[in-house]
């Protein structure tokens, strides 16, 4: 585990102070540059020729007319890719299955066939229309059931997983199948008085980060430079270097949201190939409509089977889930596999069996989406819990508290759980809802009102084996400023501010002495990604570690200058001082001047391995930390229209130490807002021929200020052993808990347990009618 920085008390107390982000004023001035604002000299523009069909063999591509158009620089097709011996044509650092451009067939509507590079976007757009493609259409599999059917057409004929935990099944569309088991599932069901089984589904949705995916690639002098708004600059750098066999640098500006969609984008390798052919920098912006064909939150289908005693004690839980990773499993298979760890919820499940299937289909490639599919697992086991509670006549909060994990419990992964506080979190949410007092009935009777809760457990991205991929560098220059160099992408979550707060406290200096440098592989040390709520914990620890190392070097230099023992010296906001004689000291700038050179240190955070528990045993670490969270919802169901309104939404999480408390509450609000869309009205819809029907925002409603519930965000703080000053991550958790709580509130209001989202008015009306007819 990482250094026990949590045991140290900060001096300057930046950690724990709510503050607007360091860049808030520049953002309010409209001066922060996003990817779409960047230009480089002599740049050309790319547009993409895309497949109109979901599945087809490529017979021929004729780009001669496009190449002949005035202003066209070049057209990249499979011929150019395959003709270049220095280009590896297949991309994917988790699953290597996505070609730069289609080589033999297209696998989804919008699949990339060619890239046109021209002097302007308008010319490139015109030339795209001139590329003539001949297809031999193949039958498509548009959902997991079709993909698993006997004799289903295969989306991929061969499998190339990179991450060691991925296990495809040859000859099928199953690109990954895995099982996590604990105890004896059969015995667990035998011990049960009742067994419940429910199947839940959720369709694909879109992230809709407003900052459009864009990049500029340049291949010059045997070097690649890519500017992009991605969430994983270092894995991308390595992938570029492998594919193009030359050094690469990836530079990430401020990013306007990603929510997972920018974590495994492949546009950068496509545009790099185009830039290499064009021998000029090439800029590409993915349009809003194109994002709908490029990465989507995958469809989910999951079955939960739970055995319970009469008193509500869970004896066994079996979860089988299918994630539709679409045409390319770039990272979707691994995301699905990671959630094996949390599919049984924040509960004591002595006998568990969890089975994950990641399935190729002819939908667009899937992408992580703020905690997915933990969100869908939570929806499944939490709504089933309400059904059980209702049947057994046990209070819905009570049944959860009865089964909820506590410190010292062994999770289904074998992890020894600590600093859980899951019950406190749930209790806080229940109190916020005035639990025990039923929702006040609508006087007119036209609306049904109800309350519901849901609780969850979320992992963070933790490698299956010991590795160090999280480094931070802190440098002290002649201006006396500490420059903190980190790979974390400042995507809107305020990571520069969080890290500056942690660095300031670790160094005992104020924010005025800190300068942040982020997300440029040429200027900062390695970091695996800004995903999975991992940065505060992992990068925060690396920053503390770097600060410790730097402090030792700087104090050593100051000890010579002050002619005092290093042990007598300490850091302060103005410089190194004598601890018991604060008037004596030397400024940081003077130390650098005397030393004749700046100081710098790299710190890291090694994750994985095992944990030595107080019971003397070693336990595996399947997640460096677990986040426990709960949500409460109050809804109103209009019996005339079927419309469900989320009136009030509370949420709470155990965040460890809150580094920037207000920013945590805002993350919870934002998470609730984002997920209420897919819960109540968002979904992507395809027709039977595999054509997407609602790719434009005009046809795809998003949450607005008008759909905003009355938020009641809250948190519980218990410094987490091993976290930087006790902090852990929470960026996704506000979303994860929403659908379960909302479905339970609707269940409370109507007596109808829905097994799918979104809760579209016509579904609700049909269910209300059916219930009335049944009664």
């Amino acid at each position, binding site marked *: 585990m990482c250094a026990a920085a949590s045991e140290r008390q900060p001096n300057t107390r930046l950690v724990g102070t709510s503050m*607007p*982000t360091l*860049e*808030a*004023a520049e*953002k*309010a*001035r*409209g*001066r*922060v*540059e*996003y990817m*779409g*604002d960047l230009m480089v000299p002599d740049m050309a523009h790319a547009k993409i020729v895309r497949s109109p069909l979901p599945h087809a063999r490529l017979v021929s591509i004729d780009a001669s007319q496009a190449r002949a158009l005035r202003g066209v620089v070049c057209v990249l097709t499979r011929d150019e890719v395959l003709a270049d011996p220095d280009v590896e044509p297949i991309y994917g650092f988790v699953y290597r299955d996505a070609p730069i451009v289609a080589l033999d067939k297209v696998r989804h509507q919008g699949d990339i066939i060619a890239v046109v590079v021209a002097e302007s976007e308008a010319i490139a757009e015109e030339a795209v229309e001139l590329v003539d493609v001949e297809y031999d259409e193949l039958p498509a599999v548009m959902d997991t059931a079709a993909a698993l059917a006997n004799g289903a057409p295969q989306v991929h004929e061969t499998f190339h997983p990179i991450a060691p935990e991925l296990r495809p099944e040859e000859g099928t569309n199953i690109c990954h199948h895995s099982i996590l088991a604990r105890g004896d599932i059969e015995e667990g069901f035998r011990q049960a008085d009742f067994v419940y089984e429910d199947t839940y589904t959720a369709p694909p949705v879109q*992230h*809709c*980060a*407003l*900052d*459009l995916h864009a990049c500029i690639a340049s291949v010059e002098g045997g070097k690649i430079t890519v500017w992009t708004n991605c969430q994983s600059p270092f894995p991308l750098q390595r992938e570029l270097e492998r594919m193009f066999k030359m050094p690469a640098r990836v530079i990430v500006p*401020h*990013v*306007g*949201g990603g*929510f997972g969609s920018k974590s495994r984008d492949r546009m950068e390798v496509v545009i790099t190939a185009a830039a290499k052919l064009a021998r000029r920098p090439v800029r590409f912006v993915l*349009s*809003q409509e194109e994002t709908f064909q490029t990465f989507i939150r995958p469809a989910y289908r999951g079955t939960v089977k739970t055995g319970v005693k009469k008193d509500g004690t869970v004896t066994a839980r079996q979860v089988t889930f299918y994630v539709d990773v679409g045409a390319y499993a770039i990272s979707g298979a691994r995301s699905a596999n990671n959630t094996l760890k949390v599919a049984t919820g924040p509960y004591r499940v002595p006998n568990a069996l969890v089975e994950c299937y990641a399935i190729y289909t002819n939908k667009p490639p899937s992408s992580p989406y703020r905690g997915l599919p933990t969100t869908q697992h939570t929806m499944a086991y939490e709504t089933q819990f309400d059904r059980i509670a209702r049947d057994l006549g046990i209070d819905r909060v009570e049944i959860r508290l009865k089964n909820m994990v506590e410190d010292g419990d062994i999770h289904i992964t074998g992890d020894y759980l600590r600093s859980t506080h899951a019950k406190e979190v749930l209790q806080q949410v229940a109190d916020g809802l005035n639990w025990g007092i039923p929702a006040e009935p609508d006087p007119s009777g036209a609306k049904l009102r109800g309350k519901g809760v849901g609780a969850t457990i979320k992992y963070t991205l933790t490698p299956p084996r010991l590795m160090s991929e999280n480094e931070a560098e802190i440098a002290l220059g002649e201006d006396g400023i500490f420059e903190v160099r980190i790979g974390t992408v400042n*995507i*809107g*979550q*305020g990571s520069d501010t969080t890290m500056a707060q942690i660095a300031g406290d670790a160094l005992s200096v104020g924010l005025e002495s800190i300068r942040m440098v982020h997300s440029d592989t040429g200027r900062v040390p390695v970091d695996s990604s800004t995903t999975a709520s991992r940065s505060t914990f992992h990068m925060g620890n690396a920053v503390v570690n770097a600060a410790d190392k730097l402090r030792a070097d700087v104090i050593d230099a100051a000890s010579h200058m002050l002619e005092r023992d290093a042990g007598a010296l300490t850091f302060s906001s103005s410089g190194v001082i004598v601890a018991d004689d604060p008037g004596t000291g030397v400024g940081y700038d003077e130390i650098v001047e005397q030393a004749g050179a700046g100081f710098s240190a790299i710190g890291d955070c090694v994750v994985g391995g095992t944990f030595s528990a107080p019971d003397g045993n070693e336990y595996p670490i399947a997640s460096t930390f677990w986040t426990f969270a709960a949500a409460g919802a109050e809804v109103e169901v209009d019996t005339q229209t079927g419309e469900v309104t989320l009136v009030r939404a509370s949420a709470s999480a155990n965040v460890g130490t809150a580094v920037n408390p*207000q*920013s945590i509450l*805002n993350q919870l*609000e*934002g*998470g*609730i*807002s*984002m997920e209420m869309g897919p819960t109540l009205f968002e979904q992507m819809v395809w027709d039977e021929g595999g054509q997407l029907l609602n790719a*434009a*925002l*005009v046809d795809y409603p*998003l*949450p*607005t*200020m*008008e759909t*905003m519930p009355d*938020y009641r965000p809250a948190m519980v703080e218990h410094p987490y052993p091993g976290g930087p000053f006790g902090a852990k991550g929470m960026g996704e958790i506000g979303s994860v808990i929403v659908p379960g709580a909302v479905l339970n509130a609707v269940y409370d209001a109507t007596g109808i347990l829905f097994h799918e989202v979104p809760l579209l008015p016509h579904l609700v009306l049909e269910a209300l009618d059916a219930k009335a007819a049944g009664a």
Partner: protein
Amino acid sequence: MQVSLTVNGQTTWIDVPPERTLLQLLRDDLGLKGTKDYCHSGVCGACTVLADGAAVSACSLLAAQVNGKSITTVEGLEGPDGLHPIQQAFIDNFGLQCGYCTPGMMLLAKSLLEENPAPSREEIIRYMGGNICRCTGYAGILRSVQAAADTLSKG
């Protein structure tokens, strides 16, 4: 064709092709990149600017349609005495996270507060309901607009 417009107080004559949108004119011709783009269909509100004080989607107007008008973009909010109270309110009330929708949100808020200096919560929600934010969940934006209204009403 030539259009003349006043952008953030400065009058400009510029030659543009007839299909040039106001958004392109602002971002590409005048280099005012604070105005953002996303949906290009007048839905998301990221490109909201003021034309003679009224909030409009710059992506959905041709440059020719604003000929002779006075345009305010985010770059025109800050005055000689510093940040506009709306900008300060968005910073102080955590009305922004990634910042991408912020210029459009602030200009929409300016238009609202000029029409209605003391809007109720419901009036703010109805007026601001057209602009999309994916990060904040809107509560911080609502608080920011309320705070800005308070500051502005105190003069």
